[in-house]
């Protein structure tokens, strides 16, 4: 059995298994590439909850303050978060995945297993027909040989399968994070761009003591001044502040 064939079978399986993830990543990476969208070095991912809460709050003040783009971005961020959770679940148990899904799909492993099964059946028939001493010893040797080979083959497949699974998972995870970071960055900028344009939101923020050209940084500083320190929310917002240096 050559490695090329094993690799090919495993690669095809993963291509199919991660199809929704890979298609989503591909379409988003082309969007980023085709329009030169920004993929910041700063990690905005932590701010996702803060931005979505702020958006909801502002929407209550001025229902139509932002274009649909903002809503789409928010929905997509949630979608990516769910996709990450799903990725974690479906890659959590490599052995189970190998046994329950991959082995059913592998032509080589199935053929080998079928061959062993057939040999076993034939041998059982021979056993019923004749006494043990007249058994064809070649059949027993052949069965043992094939059984051993199947075990070795499964081990070989599993070793490659596990390595590729870890690599694939990590690559998808990194791509999803990069895409999500870019989305949250635009979400942040658009949120404040349109909050600044909204008369109602501006009035509300000015009452809070903020000056025009509102930003996440300015808003977070004010909120942290107001809310009770050492609470979960306070610590979370403090972490967010690090993003907006």
């Amino acid at each position: 059995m050559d490695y090329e064939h094993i690799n090919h079978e495993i690669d095809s399986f993963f291509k199919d298994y991660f199809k929704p993830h890979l298609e989503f990543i591909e379409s988003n990476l082309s969007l980023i590439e085709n329009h030169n969208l920004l993929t910041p070095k700063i990690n905005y991912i932590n701010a996702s909850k803060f931005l979505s809460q702020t958006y909801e709050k502002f929407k209550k003040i001025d229902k139509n303050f932002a274009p649909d783009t903002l809503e789409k971005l928010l929905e997509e961020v949630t979608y990516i978060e769910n996709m990450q959770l799903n990725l974690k679940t479906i890659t959590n148990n490599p052995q189970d995945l190998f046994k329950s899904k991959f082995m059913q799909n592998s032509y080589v492993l199935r053929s080998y297993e079928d061959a062993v099964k057939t040999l076993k059946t034939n041998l059982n028939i021979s056993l019923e027909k004749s006494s043990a001493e007249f058994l064809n010893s070649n059949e027993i040797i052949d069965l043992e040989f094939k059984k051993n080979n199947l075990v070795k083959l499964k081990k070989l497949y599993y070793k490659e399968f596990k390595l590729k699974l870890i690599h694939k998972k990590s690559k998808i995870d990194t791509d999803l994070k990069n895409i999500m970071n870019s989305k949250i960055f635009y979400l942040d900028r658009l949120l404040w761009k349109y909050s600044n344009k909204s008369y109602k939101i501006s009035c509300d923020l000015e009452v809070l003591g903020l000056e025009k050209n509102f930003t996440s940084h300015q808003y977070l500083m004010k909120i942290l001044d107001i809310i009770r320190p050492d609470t979960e929310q306070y610590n979370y917002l403090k972490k967010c502040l690090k993003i907006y240096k």
Partner: protein
Amino acid sequence: MNKFEYLVNDVEEFLKINEEESQKIESKTMKKLISVQDKIKIFKNISYEELKAIIYDLKFVRYEYKDHIVEQDSTSEIIYYLIDGECQVFQNSNKIGELHSGSTFGESGAIFEQKRSATVICASKTATLLSFKIDKNNLEFASNALAILYRNLAFEINAKLNDLNKNISAKTS
């Protein structure tokens, strides 16, 4: 059609943001950092974009003669870079060293989260320092820059250890 397909007007919104970002005026502190970044050894080989991603609470601070910059046994994650001026280092009230412009200090406390091992006092009429903290959590998008920064800091710590060894050798011989 993809559930999240962005229409022309959505993409236009993104492109406007790109334009605004490129025209964005950096804060005074960031501008100052750009002007001195090349001279600061610990920021060597790190791009400005990456630097912005891995440091926070960046401040340019001026101290006056006898001002205490760092107190022994205190805890803080701040790293200092002495831009101009002189400082003296004391351990249990004994002077153990001097710091000149271009020196970095506070890195051990920041990296190893230890108590400050010495007190640093401004020894010139004034001293200008750049102070900052490292955002250790930005491993996702700036791991390379963080690795370079830690390597640069390791070089600084190593240079200090070499100086210390030389001083000990000189005293014992």
